[in-house]
């Protein structure tokens, strides 16, 4: 039977625990510097793109371990397009946004068609985009600007993807932020308790009450601490709203909808999926269309954060997204993986990045550590699965 034990809880949440331990470790090693409001904010802002692209990559990987190598270059390309439209051609902001999304949809549709219907292996089809969009983006930027970068974006465009909501001065307590934090914490508690109550009522196996309370206390603490930190640094970053929105929407899609189930099934066994009436090609098509649209969002977020579009934007973003998924326990063969897992994976890498940077450790060493963490996560995953099988 599905027994509840401390060991199982630890085993299931090993990445979350690793994240907390590593965060505390870096907080100590940096003399508390890691835990200051401004560093908490910058952790979110710096890694925003990983969460957004990680979600898109998760959807691709679910369909059978497929990846998209073109996202980093496409971020650069879309930044250039947005810059040309908004800054050079003075297209108004709503129309700029519509146009960039349209470009994203067109690319996604072409890519999806090549992969799903012409059956070109994803890594080859997207390798082409990886090469071409970097070149295209750079050429566009060079042709319109001497510095091969476009800045001076209109503030209303930047405001949609960067800055704070209800901004207050640094060091003062931002009231709306605290209020939203409390509402968020209350919502989490309500969801935890009502989920358990529902299970108990219907006689399903439910976690012990003590565990649910403990889990809720921990989650409330994290949310309130985060809210306080953000409140002391001027308020909630706009990107956090985008991140939460994307995570919640895709969390629901993957966990609760038939569409999510179709993605998992195609990755689990494509032939079974086909004979069960699932349109495999459409699923693959959607995965890559979706990836391109999310890449547009990531591109706008990155452009807004720097206030400029430049030719080296988005470098290695595809690798960051893939790494977040892998560390977060998404199967490299498809068929299993969760949004929450990916989030933990992305946060883990983000924390390592920031912590080591704050300790002034050389970039090369950071890369070595990240590589080791990636490998360790996969090895751990495989070993723990082997252990389960033997029982």
């Amino acid at each position, binding site marked *: *039977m*599905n027994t509840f034990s401390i060991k199982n809880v630890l085993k299931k949440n090993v990445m979350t625990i690793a994240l907390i331990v590593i965060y505390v470790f870096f907080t100590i090693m940096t003399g508390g510097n890691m835990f200051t409001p401004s560093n908490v904010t910058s952790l979110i802002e710096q890694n925003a793109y990983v969460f957004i692209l990680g979600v898109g990559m998760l959807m691709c990987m679910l369909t059978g371990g497929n990846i998209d190598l073109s996202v980093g270059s496409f971020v650069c390309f879309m930044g250039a397009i947005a810059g040309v439209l908004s800054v050079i051609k003075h297209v108004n902001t709503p129309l700029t946004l519509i146009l960039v999304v349209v470009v994203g949809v067109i690319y996604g549709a072409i890519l999806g068609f090549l992969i799903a219907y012409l059956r070109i292996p994803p890594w080859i089809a997207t390798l082409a985009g990886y090469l071409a969009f970097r070149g295209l983006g750079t050429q566009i930027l060079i042709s319109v600007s001497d510095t091969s970068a476009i800045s001076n974006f209109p503030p209303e465009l930047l405001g949609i993807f960067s800055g704070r909501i209800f901004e207050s001065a640094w060091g003062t307590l931002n009231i709306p932020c605290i209020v939203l934090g409390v509402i968020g914490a209350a919502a989490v508690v309500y969801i935890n308790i009502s989920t358990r109550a*529902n299970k108990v009522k*219907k006689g*399903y*196996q439910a976690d012990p009450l003590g565990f649910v309370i403990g889990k809720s206390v921990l989650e409330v603490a994290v949310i309130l601490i985060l809210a306080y930190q953000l409140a002391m640094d001027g308020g909630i970053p706009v990107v956090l709203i985008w991140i939460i929105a994307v995570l919640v929407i895709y969390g629901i899609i993957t966990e*609760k*909808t*038939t*569409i999510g*189930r179709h993605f*998992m*099934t195609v990755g*689990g*066994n494509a*032939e*079974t*999926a*086909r*004979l*069960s*009436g*699932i*349109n495999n090609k459409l699923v693959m098509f959607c995965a890559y269309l979706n990836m391109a649209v999310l890449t547009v969002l990531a591109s706008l977020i990155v452009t807004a954060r720097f206030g400029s579009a430049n030719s080296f934007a988005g470098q290695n973003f595809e690798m960051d997204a893939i790494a977040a998924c892998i560390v977060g326990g998404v199967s490299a063969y498809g*068929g*299993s993986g969760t949004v929450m897992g990916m989030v933990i994976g992305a946060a883990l890498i983000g924390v390592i990045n920031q912590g080591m940077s704050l300790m002034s450790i050389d970039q090369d060493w950071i890369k070595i550590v990240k590589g080791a963490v990636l490998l360790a996560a996969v090895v751990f995953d495989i070993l723990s699965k082997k252990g389960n099988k*033997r*029982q």
Partner: protein
Amino acid sequence: MAKVLLEMKSITKTFPGVKALDNVNLQVEEGEIHALVGENGAGKSTLMNVLSGIYPYGTYEGDIVYDGEVCEFHNIKDSEKKGIVIIHQELALIPYMTIGENMFLGNEQGSKWCIDWNKTYAEADKYLEMVGLEDSSKTLIKDIGTGKQQLVEIAKALAKHAKLLILDEPTSSLNETDSRALLDLMKKLKSEGMTMIIISHKLNEVSYVADKITVVRDGSTIETMDAKTEDISESRIIKGMVGREITDRFPKRHDVPIGDIMMEVRNWTVYHPEFAERKVVDDVSINVRAGEVVGIYGLMGAGRTELAMSIFGRSYGIGISGTLILRGEHVVLKSPKQAIAAGLAYVTEDRKGNGLVLTNSIKTNTTLANLNAISKGSFIDKDKEYLVAEDYVQKLKTKTPSVEQLVGNLSGGNQQKVLLAKWMFADPDVLILDEPTRGIDVGAKYEIYCIINDLAKAGKSVIVISSELPEVIGMSDRIYIMNQAKIVGEMKASEATQENIMACIVKSGSEA
């Protein structure tokens, strides 16, 4: 009395929580064919894995005495050095390599650094001749049929200088002709002094080939029968396997009214998807009525699966022509999705390959073909899903701790039940069951037959495709016989015997 070649004494093997083998004793004499029979999960394969060193010395208790000495095998290489070679159920040949390359894989001929290809192929041809395979050793594996591939496996074993050959379900993927050829080859090898252990579910084959039969049940050896002195009929073996006598292997259907024609296929022709000029289904016309169980008997490769899959939303083949009439109306089904919506279900013969998602739970597999029934809009009602899965587990008596169990962890019979549950939940009018009892044990077979009867009772039309004659005759109301892409006969089950069905096939073969 011949010399005892192998003796396994008091073998006990425990996995965490389960005693897979409990004090097992097995004696094999030199030059005999010894059959191991038992239900799935009884411990036959575990025993052979102990013998061949897959479970190394030290992980089990008891002794293996081989050729007069106690052996401590730490891996397969150790046992192969002694001449114990195991041929697994799933063929382990590499399709894009030649027969010769496959035969000497890991045992390459020539010097340490350089393979001597002339020697490889010469040696290979020598062993191929011994097993009676006429193809050149330079043929690619993918270009020969499974029957010949099985012969290559045996040749490969001979090339390793095998003295004791273990064959795990050697005929499970072969048709009757190839099976017979293989069994005859075993007899020939025996006459040349080879000792063999065969694991098989096909009891008629066991009776045909074995000198001794050891029955394994629940991790223990129950009895050993000697063909020379005892009755080794199928019913006698079954009695030993299940611990009771199954008087009726096929449950009877009582008073099931047979209604109107539910589905009819006329002049159905299908071409091979890769070899576009090859007809795999040739002008086939069949029908099935409500409440009726129709059997389609044919040897493997006769076109049965191709027929079923092409009807099921054209999921196989190209250039499909013919008419499909469902409930009296012409329909055109272009995808499995449309076929499911029209009330068809195809329960595949290959449950692991294209029937189930092994890494998913029983729950998600059960609802897969009819997700809409448990969803509001796009949102899955997980409570409902749980209840549906639970309901089918109870109805079909699937053995599992919970519906959250991964299907990959279930035994073959229970996997088959989940597969049936999946398609029953899709609520079809016509179910096409392709080899519904392949590779599952006698007890589970009986339960599957009961489910088929229940479906017929509920007014469904059931088509059972099978290459087991007793099954087709025992379960069907009416039987179609298929051979070489064509329907070559149709008869009522009451008139059918194994002899006149085989006669149909032989007759059609001689006409062609």
